[in-house]
């Protein structure tokens, strides 16, 4: 007895036809067996799923088409009481050999019939497995990232789009002293105070992470301090990055590093150079002055002796220049240098520099041409710094141009800047060394041959000065034809910078 008979027993009923039609066209598989598990009914869906003809299925044991051992699953059905419904999963080996998984609801009908109504979950199984795999890889990925984030030396704080903390790594906790629970869910800019180097609290809108979220740009900042839970102000170098997905800012990451030690080392380095250089000045002064005393009284010397003493004097002078340049560099690099802009007449400044260099210019019989815009406005720059820049450029021109050379200084006015040009018809800069010309201690190969005297610091300093004054510096040169340097100074003037030291002191 099967469903078919149940259906056929009420022949001609429209309802029965409907049921029949439905059973063969629904997406569920429907089949029935006797208590011996011999199949006595199956719908078209089941046939299609298994690939067998109905005639092949009817009369055969369900266990014969089950895949592997899962026939045992059916055994517990033997203990079933009437009208109980079970949910079982069976795998069927189809005619083509593929395995089909079916999730079935099984009812024991009138103590003689098992009715199975089920769904093909083969594909779903695959999806679930894939999902499981994905979750697994996702979890692995997460664990790996967590481990990386906890192992790196930088503090990492992740925020949502509102600025609430959603993740803090171990370093961030170590640096700031807050527990992760104290930060999660809190607004970063409310929970952790940030100050500038004067101890003033940084305005929320100027906080790097706020700016990153707002401008959608990565922000680098290394002049601020985070206040730790125990009240210490920790200098930090911060990289604040917005997380942008589908053109929406969904959050941000604040990565920071405690730079206390770097600051300390930097300060020590600067202090050391400064101290060492100052100490060097005493013996350098002694050598300079004793050599001067001998040269003053040179009538008692023969020509060879005179030359030797002059060499001592020159070498010593070179050492003095080197110490001065080193001191200037340590000042500029330490950021302690004062930029104290004053309304300055560049014409006057340049004329003074030229006047000071006149002995050197005359000794090399150079011709110096000054061409300065007739209506030059006063410009707000630090005259000591800019003077040093002109001095370095002109000294180079004088030194690295053969006797009787031509050096010109042109100052012109553009819309919003003054352009200074220093040209010579000297040795020039070899093409392959153009890149390195502003490097510290770099001297080009052609000038070293001609002029041993030089520190390789002049252009490095000039560039540092011009750039810290808000200008730009560049050059053009043809080897053995000459060199032209240009630098600009903004008419709006340089930005004042407080510091501890001035150049050349």
């Amino acid at each position, binding site marked *: 007895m099967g469903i078919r008979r149940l259906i056929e027993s009420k022949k001609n009923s429209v309802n029965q036809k409907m049921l029949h039609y439905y059973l063969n066209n629904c997406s569920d598989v429907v089949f029935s067996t006797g208590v011996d598990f011999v199949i006595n009914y199956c719908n078209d869906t089941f046939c299609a799923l298994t690939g067998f003809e109905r005639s092949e299925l009817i009369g055969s044991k369900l266990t014969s088409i089950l895949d592997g051992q899962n026939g045992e699953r059916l055994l517990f059905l033997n203990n079933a009481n009437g009208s109980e419904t079970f949910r079982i999963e069976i795998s069927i080996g189809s005619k083509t050999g593929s395995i089909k998984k079916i999730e079935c609801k099984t009812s024991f009908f009138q103590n003689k019939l098992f009715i199975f109504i089920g769904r093909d979950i083969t594909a779903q199984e695959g999806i679930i497995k894939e999902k499981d795999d994905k979750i697994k890889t996702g979890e692995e990925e997460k664990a790996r990232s967590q481990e990386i984030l906890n192992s790196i030396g930088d503090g990492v704080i992740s925020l949502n789009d509102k600025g609430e903390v959603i993740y803090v790594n171990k370093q961030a906790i170590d640096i700031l002293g807050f527990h992760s629970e104290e930060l999660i869910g809190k607004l970063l800019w409310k929970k952790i105070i940030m100050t500038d180097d004067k101890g003033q609290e940084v305005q929320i809108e100027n906080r790097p992470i706020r700016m990153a979220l707002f401008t959608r740009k990565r922000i680098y900042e290394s002049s601020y301090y985070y206040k730790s839970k125990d009240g210490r102000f920790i200098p930090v170098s911060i990289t604040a990055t917005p997380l942008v997905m589908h053109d929406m800012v969904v959050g941000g990451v604040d990565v920071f590093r405690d730079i206390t030690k770097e600051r300390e080392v930097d300060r020590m380095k600067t202090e050391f150079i400064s101290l060492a250089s100052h100490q060097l*000045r005493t013996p350098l002064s*002694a050598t300079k002055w*004793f050599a*001067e*005393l001998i040269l*003053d009284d040179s009538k008692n010397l023969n020509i060879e002796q005179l030359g030797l003493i002059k060499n001592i004097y020159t070498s010593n002078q070179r050492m003095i220049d080197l110490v*001065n340049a080193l001191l200037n560099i340590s000042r500029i690099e330490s950021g302690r240098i*004062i930029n104290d802009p004053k309304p300055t007449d560049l014409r006057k400044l340049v004329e003074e520099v030229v006047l000071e260099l006149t002995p050197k210019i005359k000794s090399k019989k150079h011709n110096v041409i000054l061409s300065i815009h007739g209506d030059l406005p006063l410009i707000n720059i630090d005259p000591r710094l800019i003077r040093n820049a002109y001095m370095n450029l002109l000294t180079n021109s004088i030194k690295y141009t053969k006797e009787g050379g031509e050096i010109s200084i042109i100052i012109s006015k553009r819309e919003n800047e003054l352009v200074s040009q220093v040209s010579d018809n000297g040795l020039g800069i070899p093409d392959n060394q153009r890149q390195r010309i502003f490097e510290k201690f770099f001297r080009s190969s052609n000038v070293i041959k001609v002029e041993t005297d030089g520190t390789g610091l002049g252009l490095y300093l000039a560039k540092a000065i011009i750039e810290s004054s808000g200008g730009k510096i560049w050059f053009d040169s043809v080897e053995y034809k000459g060199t032209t340097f240009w630098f600009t100074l903004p008419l709006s003037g340089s930005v004042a910078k407080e510091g501890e030291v001035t150049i050349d002191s």
Partner: protein
Amino acid sequence: MSNLNNLIMVVEDESLLLEAIGKKLQREGYDVLLCTSAGQAVDYLKNMKENLPDVIWLDYYLTDMNGLEFMDLLGKNENWKRIPVIVVSNSASEQKVAALMKKGVKKHILKADYRLDEIVKIIESYLKKVPVR
């Protein structure tokens, strides 16, 4: 060569520098009073009463005090206060120079940047009577 009216006091704790300065000034025709410490300089001044130095050449970092403290000592005596002081030192921060000028220092010079004859010219500019050479 010698001009008794022009006496230069040099306070410098580096004996080699002191020697060089002394030689130069003597050659230029000055009377010199060489002191290796501030204490020694003050003792000299105390004993001199009348014939005080016309100029004091002062090093900033001395073994017993610094230039600012020395200027304070000079400031306590009406006669000493009038002596022009030129500080010749190894370093010159903005603040230091400003503080020295405030205490009456006439000029501040960086040692290694000047030749002796350049410094002598500066000293001469603060003398009432330039020596006849």
